[in-house]
């Protein structure tokens, strides 16, 4: 395995970060968790992450704004959108704006790990995680 993947995880539900941080650490990710979008954007301004995982529906700043900000600041960063309000139009909008993937909540940690592995591969830093043939 190569260097650790730098991942920023943003979700205003504390339980999401609490659950996913150790799950992603297991596959070699260095995860910074944020519940406040403003603080996350400040951090994104300071550091270039390999992957940003963001919720969509949040107060003040939503995930789409975070996506646009990341794409403008660092086109190489892969942005993965997660939401409990998944629908076709929102998914298409996210993909059109440059999201790497879009996942509907609830999901299993393996679902996110699989997408992180795909993103790592796309970044040229593959990690040890089997992507099942169904993909």
């Amino acid at each position, binding site marked *: 395995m190569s260097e650790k993947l730098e991942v920023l995880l943003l979700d205003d539900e504390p339980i999401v970060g609490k659950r996913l941080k150790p799950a992603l650490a297991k596959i070699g990710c260095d995860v910074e968790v944020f519940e406040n979008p403003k603080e996350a954007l400040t951090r994104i301004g300071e550091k270039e992450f390999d992957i940003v995982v963001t919720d969509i529906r949040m107060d003040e700043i939503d995930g789409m704004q975070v996506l646009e900000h990341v794409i403008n600041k660092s086109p190489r960063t892969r942005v993965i959108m997660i939401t409990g309000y*998944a629908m076709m139009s929102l998914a298409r909008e996210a*993909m059109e704006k*440059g999201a790497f993937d879009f*996942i509907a909540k609830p999901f299993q940690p393996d679902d996110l790990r699989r997408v992180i592995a795909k993103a790592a591969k796309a970044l040229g830093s593959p990690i040890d995680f089997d992507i099942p043939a169904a993909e």
Partner: protein
Amino acid sequence: MPIIIFSSDSYQKSSELAKKTAETLGYKYVGREILGSVAAKYNIPEAKLTKALDEAPSFFGMSTKEWKQNLAYIREAVLGEMLADNVVCCGLAAHLYVLGVAHVLRVRIIEDPEERVRKVAEQGHITLEKAKKLVQRIDKQRKRRSIECFKKNETDPSMYDMMINTSQIDSEEAVGMVTTAAGYRKFKPMTYSIKCMQDMELEGRLLAVLLKDYPEVRVQARDGAVVVEIKALKREKNKKASAIKELVGKISGVHYVEVHVINDIFRQAAESGR
């Protein structure tokens, strides 16, 4: 890559464009040719499957029960093909039941009414007046079928991502427009849309199995968790729920089954009136 569904009032025109699009993109073409294997699998005449696609159930024609069943067989096969991606589908009513999947590009082919009438007259060797009446009858029947059977009006433009008038845009241009749109990022498969398609495919397989014995069954699948809803008399409730659990539990991809039995008040009223 996305899945492209073509639909039209004229199967001939849309299948021609669908085939050309599939060829250009190197995708698999899925059209009415698959009906032969569906008919063989369920041991029913292929003509009945074609009829289920073209006509609404009626008192003198196909019963609602048979129609639903035949369509479930077709839907099962179509969704099975769509799991693979890189598919162009046409003429299998998929635009009416593959709904809400972000990586499915839905294309409606239309043509000027006068031109369509002229073509029908030429093909059928009939007068323009007769052709006009025939086209009106076909359109009325198709609209009734889509609304009554699928609760969708297939002539509603908001059902589609793209509408192309082939009286104004020639075939080559039309194929170019569709292949360009297929390359848009918004139609790229993603985890969410792939799961939607997998859930839909499982629902398709479940319906193909259940509709025969439970014509009013409703099925919902998510990540292998299945909720089945049926109507039954109170005294049949436990027996039917167990039978469905057993049947559904054997289907691949199902990890959990929940059966909701709704009291069949009409049957109950009919029985108590005897």
